């Protein structure tokens, strides 16, 4: 199935039937939200909460479709190639729109040229945590210990935001800690809870239960400011000024989507993120609501790519 034949067929279909209805109010049928990760992860949870509420806002159902694979690239690629009619949108993340394009040697899509930004929804903090048996209580103590003895940290996988958070930490702190990648947060957490690996970089939401119960000792959050849900956890930046990473979720449509559709979607996203029920869910989830417009998201993507490029380059060097 070449995309050219598809476009031709689509073009004729448009010419035949849809042209007459183009003036109809968007959206007139259900919208597909592609989540580029397997169901059950943090992006999936955010996506489903948003899809449900935003569908009510738009008066059309938003159907969630999980297209997992290749660290989010497959789902993003699918939306990049989808019809730019506003009926297929993507739940993009720092992985799909900053890290993957920098990491992958074969680039399946262009994060800027292939997408029309809609709205930056939330920022999710990451957290640096250790097994309580590791004799450190602060970021500084961890850095000191790492200088004395070899340590290892777990992450949800190679090239994930969490891995790169760890690499950024290493380069800023001037220490070497061995990276142990896992297939997702779950198995990584298991090994840290069982003290097979002493240190972990994880999303705050997935680690929060263990931090609250004391099975994990949180040393610092990765955001510039402390997380509202855990005001007692210092930021890593308090020890390493300038350190800042977070995971974010944003809506993207394929490039060429009519501006009216983008505006409708962005307005619906804003209304959704202002809903008290959603606000409460996001707070439980330790996510900070942004609900920006399209232009802010475009600027955000540029800024993120600029920020991560040197880290990715560094990490690649240290990986070899």
């Amino acid at each position: 199935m070449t995309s050219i034949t598809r476009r031709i067929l689509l073009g004729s279909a448009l010419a035949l039937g849809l042209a007459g209805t183009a003036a109809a109010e968007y959206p007139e049928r259900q919208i597909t939200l592609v989540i580029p990760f397997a169901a059950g992860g943090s992006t999936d949870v955010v996506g489903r909460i948003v899809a449900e509420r935003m569908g009510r806002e738009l008066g059309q159902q938003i159907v969630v479709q999980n297209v997992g694979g290749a660290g989010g690239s497959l789902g993003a690629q699918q939306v990049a190639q989808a019809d730019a009619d506003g009926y297929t949108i993507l739940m993009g993340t720092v992985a799909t729109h900053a890290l993957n394009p920098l990491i992958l040697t074969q680039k399946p899509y262009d994060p800027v040229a292939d997408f029309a930004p809609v709205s930056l929804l939330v920022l999710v903090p990451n957290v640096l945590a250790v097994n309580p048996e590791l004799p450190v209580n602060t970021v500084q103590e961890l850095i000191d210990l790492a200088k004395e003895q070899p340590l290892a940290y777990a992450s949800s996988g190679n090239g994930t935001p969490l891995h790169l958070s760890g690499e950024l930490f290493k380069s800023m702190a001037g220490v070497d800690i061995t990276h142990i990648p896992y297939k997702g947060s779950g198995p990584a957490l298991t090994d840290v809870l069982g003290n097979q690996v002493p240190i972990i970089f994880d999303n705050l939401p997935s680690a929060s239960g263990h931090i609250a119960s004391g099975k994990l000792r949180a040393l610092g959050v990765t955001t510039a400011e402390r997380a509202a849900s855990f005001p007692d956890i210092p930021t890593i930046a308090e020890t390493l000024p300038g350190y800042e990473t977070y995971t974010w979720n944003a809506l993207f449509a394929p490039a060429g989507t009519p501006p009216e559709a983008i505006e409708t979607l962005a307005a619906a996203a804003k209304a959704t993120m202002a809903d008290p029920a959603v606000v409460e869910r996001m707070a439980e989830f330790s996510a900070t609501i942004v609900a920006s417009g399209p232009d802010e998201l475009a600027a955000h993507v540029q800024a993120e790519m600029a920020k991560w490029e040197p880290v990715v380059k560094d990490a690649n060097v240290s990986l070899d």
Partner: protein
Amino acid sequence: MDLLSNLALGFGVASSLANLAFCLIGVLLGTLIGVLPGIGATATIAMLLPITFQLEPVSSLIMLAGIYYGAQYGGSTTAILINMPGESSSAVTAIDGYQMARQGRAGTALATAAIGSFFAGTVATFLVAIFAPPLTAIALKFGAAEYFSLMVMGLVMSVALAHGSVLKALAMVVLGLLLGMVGTDVYTGAPRFTMGITQFADGLNFVAVAVGVFGIAEILRNLEDEHDREVMTKNISRLFPTRDEFRQMIAPVLRGTGIGSVLGILPGGGAILASFASYTVEKKLSKHPEEFGKGALAGVAGPESANNAGAQTSFIPLLTLGIPANPVMALMIGAMIIQGIVPGPNVVSEQPALFWGIVASMWIGNLMLVVLNLPLIGLWVKLLTVPYYILFPIIMAMCSIGVYSVNSNTYDLFAVAGFGLLGYVLSKLRCEPAPLLLGFVLGPLLEENLRRAMILSRGDPTTFVTRPISATLLVLSLAILVLVFLPQIRKRRDEVFTESDG
């Protein structure tokens, strides 16, 4: 007694009219989904997640759990009737279950599976209730070295899955391991054997491989001489097991329950091994090992019990630690987060009604399943009287939908066709698919843990023998190997096979 009051609380929650209804919906839907070839619990639960948003947390989790073990039941039905396992656990059931069906004993096989599963489910549910916290502590003792040794044991056991040449079975395991390597390397991100196809970056889809090498290969085999013979025996003798068969299944069910309960607790691959391990044990202990692979009752009873027990105990790490033991459990965690419950060790203390409600509903769900499924057996068996040329196009349609629904990945469907052809060729060469599938499932886990253990021990390979659990597992593996290759036993095996092959 704490336990009694907790269970009373749980049953109080689970037996509310609404929760009973959701439990019933869950197990019904799960059974339906499990029976349809190629569609697994993962896809269904993913589809239903948005609906659960509207429900009470406990109701939604009860329903999702119901789908999960309902699908396990249903999956065995498809494995027995049309040799199409939807999950790795039912791949083992397919070996002897399908042979029983071909001999007209489909009813017996299905009833055995249902009864074994119910018993195992009941025992395992009580294990969850009594031992959840201490068992979790054991599971956490398993690090990379332990998992590696456990996988080695699993591979050694896989030889028992073959009822033909041991050499060929070994070769199939290794081929399976290699196929499991397809995809992105976890440690470096380097793509391996993907032939430049990004869609294979996360590896070959299990459902696609299983449907291909088992199901499609079987359809092709059945089509090769349709002129000469009927595919399925139509003279179905009895639906239910005889008193004698009941006696035969007691011991395998008990052993299977034990094995499954223990292995199910281990997150990251333990439960996968449960049914394989049980099959191995039954074949080794059987007085008639030559019957295995040709319709042995114990080859259905043991693994089915193990599989269901493992399915129940795999809730232990989820409920006590918030750690998913498999993809379905990961979805359950997603469902909890959507409901605003943070999974983790605090769930038991902060949400006792939720925790014990789910535990109690497991038993209720298992009871519902057995009550639902025993009468359905007659219906399923009738399905076999549908002419094959009508049945297989339906199977193909269901497989196509099912495989595609997992990830909306077109290449998964190409893989179905490719593995169908491979499975057919291999079966013509008298190589059995079960060891290949086991290798395929274990391959990535084996490599991942081997490499992780070596990194963690800073390159010291003695880590596998200096850690006590790992060492024990390796000694056990060695013992099994010795048993398999001990000259006397070897000789008896060979006699058995020349007899049966000749």
